[in-house]
């Protein structure tokens, strides 16, 4: 049964290798059906294996742990690393999300990407992504985790720039990779520091060593902050959030899989996985919570001002991951993972429904050119509505349970009223506003300019995943993962009823505000005041980084294009050549010139003698 788990990441890898290797054996491009069977099938079987392993090994055993040692990676002095997997319930939850939601999105992709000339390349990248993501969550040491971590980054880069002919996509892809690489480098330095201090990078050993009372708290603080640097890069949190909105340049299923459900939550997973280290450092915990609170507010406001349906969802993803970071920062580990799970359901649903809308409207993404679509694509409308309800955390949807848990923990953690809780509650209001604003603008009211050409583009391959995700988004709140063994249990306390009431009321108020906003925007069309323009631009972060980092760097590179050190050598060479011309000129073959210089020299010499 343990072998079954080892096959889970290997299957998508095999799928990737087959898809990439096809041209080695067949000259012709295989039909789409074959590619679909390989690409979707590999992830499907991986999902099946995960389910079987869960049922056989982990069912009813919350403390179950499976270790799978494949082979030794490197052993140099104390640096002992293996290609080893460690599966506990935290990993298992991630496995189920990655393979389960991943499979649904693969299936949807088969419909969405039909007739794309690069169908095979698309599924190859997608399979590679699943492999890397599974390695990330199953790794038993931080270096193997880093392997998956960079691997998903690469796939994200490749898929954002999938339609490579448009340079805008390429720029967005590069931006995504480089911004996350900045975070990754911080994380790598964190690994160096951890190894320096504890002489191991194996996660369980590391947690043991750090738990030792003699461990240096200051180093733990610095290391956890550096790991947080990696997490904010990958999870698009402040201050490295700027890449995610641009990443929407990729195909919409990619946005659903990578930039909503799985990869961007890797940062949350990392911190949850390393939580015993974080609990040792109050500074790090506070930093995580503040990053989360600030991000969820800033991104929420930005989402209100967007006019591209995918960018709204992108900012909402940033904001929701902000909730997860907030949860981590207040020690609500299970709450964060629970929200990660429900978010994977409803945000994948939202993106896939948005994909249906976009495809039905022949690649129109501006919500102000939509409207009245509830009549034309009712099924998509239903799915999108369920997604919105869950995202806004209307009672009884899955998002409600997870978000409620986070808000309550934030209240408890600081014993009552505090700014983190307030940020969360305010965020809930904003979430309600931007969610329902999109819903109204796209589906309600009169038809927009693009809606007239609407043609329902859903195929069975697309409707089935949508339906399953809709059910999960509605009822996923009942699937509380048994994470007590991983995170420990916390005493249940019930704060005052009004605290709960506020959490329920906020999305409803948001809905009301959204309706007003919709009425006004429907009249004015796409128009922004100075404030909303600022929000629209993502609080000017892009502008700031462009002027602070990108331009100076480019200028420096351009200035030093010819390598100033080389100028030193070139100067020496030029000087020698000058000297050579000068001296050559003196040897011109004319006897009278020689005689004249000889005479002049002699006179000078004699004069010098006399003078001295």
């Amino acid at each position, binding site marked *: 049964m343990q072998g079954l788990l080892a096959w889970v990441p290997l299957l998508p890898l095999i799928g990737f290798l087959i898809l*990439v290797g096809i*041209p*080695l054996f067949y000259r012709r491009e295989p039909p789409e059906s074959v590619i679909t069977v390989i690409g979707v099938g590999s992830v499907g079987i991986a999902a099946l294996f995960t389910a079987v392993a869960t049922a056989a090994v982990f069912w009813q055993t919350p403390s179950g742990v499976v270790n799978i040692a494949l*082979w*030794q*990676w*490197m*052993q*140099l*002095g*104390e*640096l002992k690393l293996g*290609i080893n997997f460690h599966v506990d319930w935290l990993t298992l939850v991630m496995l189920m999300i990655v393979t389960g939601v991943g499979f649904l999105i693969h299936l949807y992709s088969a419909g969405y990407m039909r007739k794309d000339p690069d169908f095979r390349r698309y599924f190859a990248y997608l399979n590679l992504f699943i492999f890397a993501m599974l390695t990330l969550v199953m790794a038993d040491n931080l*270096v193997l985790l*880093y*392997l998956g*971590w*960079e*691997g998903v980054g*690469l796939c994200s*880069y490749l898929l954002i*720039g999938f339609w*490579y*002919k*448009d*340079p805008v996509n*390429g*720029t967005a*892809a*590069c931006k995504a*990779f*480089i911004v996350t*690489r*900045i975070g*990754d*480098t911080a994380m*790598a*330095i964190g*690994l*160096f*520091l951890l*190894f*320096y201090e504890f*002489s191991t990078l194996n996660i369980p050993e590391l947690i043991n060593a750090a738990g030792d009372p003699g461990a240096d708290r200051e180093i733990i603080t610095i290391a956890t902050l550096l790991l947080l640097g990696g997490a904010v890069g990958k999870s698009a949190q402040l201050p490295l959030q700027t890449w995610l909105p641009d990443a929407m340049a990729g195909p919409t299923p990619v946005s659903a899989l990578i930039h909503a459900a799985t990869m961007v939550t890797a940062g949350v997973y990392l911190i949850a996985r390393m939580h015993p280290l974080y609990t040792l450092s109050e500074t790090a915990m506070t930093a995580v919570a503040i990053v989360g609170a600030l991000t969820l507010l800033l991104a929420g406001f930005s989402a209100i001002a967007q006019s591209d349906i995918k960018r709204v969802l992108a900012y909402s993803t940033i904001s929701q991951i902000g909730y997860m970071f907030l949860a981590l920062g207040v020690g609500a580990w299970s709450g964060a993972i629970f929200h990660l799970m429900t978010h994977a359901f409803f945000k994948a649903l939202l993106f896939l429904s948005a994909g249906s809308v976009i495809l039905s409207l022949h690649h129109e993404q501006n919500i102000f050119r939509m409207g009245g679509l509830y009549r034309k694509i009712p099924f998509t409308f239903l799915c999108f509505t369920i997604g919105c309800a869950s995202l806004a955390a209307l009672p009884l949807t899955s998002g409600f349970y997870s978000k409620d848990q986070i808000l309550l923990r934030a209240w408890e953690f600081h014993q009552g009223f505090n700014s983190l809780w307030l940020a969360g509650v305010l965020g809930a209001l904003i979430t309600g506003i931007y969610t329902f604003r999109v819903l109204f603008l796209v589906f309600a009211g009169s038809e927009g300019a693009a809606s007239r050409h609407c043609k329902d583009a859903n195929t069975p391959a697309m409707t089935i995943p949508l339906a399953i995700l809709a059910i999960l988004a509605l009822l996923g709140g009942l699937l509380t993962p048994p994470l007590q063994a991983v995170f420990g249990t916390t005493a249940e306390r019930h704060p005052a009823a009004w605290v709960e009431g506020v959490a329920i009321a906020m999305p409803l108020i948001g809905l009301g505000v959204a309706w007003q906003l919709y009425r006004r925007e429907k009249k004015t069309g796409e128009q922004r005041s100075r404030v909303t323009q600022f929000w629209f631009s993502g609080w000017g972060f892009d502008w700031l980084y462009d002027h602070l980092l990108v331009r100076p760097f480019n200028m*420096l*590179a*351009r200035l*030093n*294009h010819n*390598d100033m*050190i*080389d100028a*030193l*050598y070139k100067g020496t060479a030029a000087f020698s050549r000058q000297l050579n011309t000068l001296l050559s000129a003196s040897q011109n073959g004319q006897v009278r010139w020689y005689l004249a210089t000889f005479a002049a020299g002699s006179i000078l010499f004699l004069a010098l003698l006399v003078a001295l």
Partner: protein
Amino acid sequence: MTLMAIIILLFAGGILAWLSERYLQRGGHWIGLVSLLLASLLLASYWPYLGAAQVIGSGPWWDSVQINWIPRFGISFHLAIDGLGFLMLALTMAMGIFGLVMTWNDIHFRRGFFYFNYLWTLAGVVGVFTAMDLFLFFFFWEVMLVPMLFLIAVWGYEQRLFAAIKFFIFTQASSLLMLIAIVALAYLHYGNSGQLTFNYNDLLDAQLAPSTAYWLMLGFFVAFIVKLPALPFHPWLPDAHTQAPTAGSILLAAILLKTGAYGLLRFNLPLFPESSAAFAPVAMSIGAVSVIYGAMLAFAQSDMKRLVAYSSVSHMGFVLLGLYALNTIAMQGAVMQMIAHGLSTAALFALVGALQHRLHTRDMTQLGGVWAILPKLSAIALFFAVASLGLPGLGNFVAEFTVLVGSFRSSHWIAVLAATGLIGAALYALIMMQRGFFGALNKRLQKLSPQAPIADLNLRESCALLSLAALLVLLGLRPQPVFDIASPTVARSLAHIETARAQYAKDQGIGTRFTSQEQTWAKPHPKESESP
């Protein structure tokens, strides 16, 4: 004798190729390939040593041959091989074959002479990697230089003469320093021991005054880091790489640069342990600065070959950093980087060469959107670009990671500085992909393609490139065999340093200086000293 046979085989093959020029129009590459394959076969006869290097044979060498050459001066023809030497020879053979196969039909004139120079360069390199007599080492050091000069000057691109002269002056001036240092070392040793010798094993025990040792060490150091190349001695490299024919660039990048790193590890550290240890912070800083400076310059280039050339400066900076971190992890990482960089950069040069062969330009402002017309070539280029930026799972990552982990123990800030080079690597690798292969198809290429469709990689090229890719994956996922092969050599170099440090501590009196020295150098780790 096997070592001697390898060298003779390559020399003879070269002469044969030259002679054959008159009779066979296209025979040169076959003669080259056969001699290289035979040499590889000879090298493969060392495979029994791979598993159990410690047990078989006495002393550090797997095999050695010593013949008197100029007995009057204590100069002998002394070749020997150990784990490091084997790895370097294997790399040399593999890259020699790779370069030959990738440019199978590229040479259009003086074919025989081309393969003569090609094989003689390789023979010189094999000599450098096996010579255990310092005079012989210097001899081979020069032998590999001259044929390389011809390769650049005769078969190169637009500014080949300029590049060839620059290359020659840089390496010649630096090897002069090395020659002085070698002679001075032998002379001083003669003064102390009364025995005139250039033998490596004997000179290891040379007793030198600290200040003299420091100057001699600098002489070797400069010669080696010119070859590496590290700042500020790198300017020959971009010109030489860019102007050399593809096969020449492959030889330069994959093998010739490694002779510098090899020299540091084999000669500089063991011969001058005290001064090397004292000099280490400077050397590490040079390495870290090279990493960043090389990456920045690579980013600024619009000539794709020049970009790859500058990326070499960046990658080899990691080697210098790792070697002078003076601990097992980092030094092993440096050895790994020598191999991984050899594979990835050779492939990138081969790809740029293939691109230029097809599209007649390597200027990235003239390229763009190449993926649409050459998908296979572009996909493989993507793989090697990603390897170059240090993606985990490939050999380059293992190397860079271990170098950084190890050097972080020696010096936090230098390691952190070098780590920012990881961002720089992403910048230049991605901008190369973006400007060269992605984006809309360049207008110039649009005109080109409809009339005569451009041939993508053929089977020969694909196989050669894919085998390098497979090797990089193998190194990335299972690097342990390489570490095991290199470990005795690294351990020996390190042992010299440790002894010197202990001696230094004893001289200073075990007390204040010792502990402070230890703390700035390495956190005392009990296990470190136990491992061989």
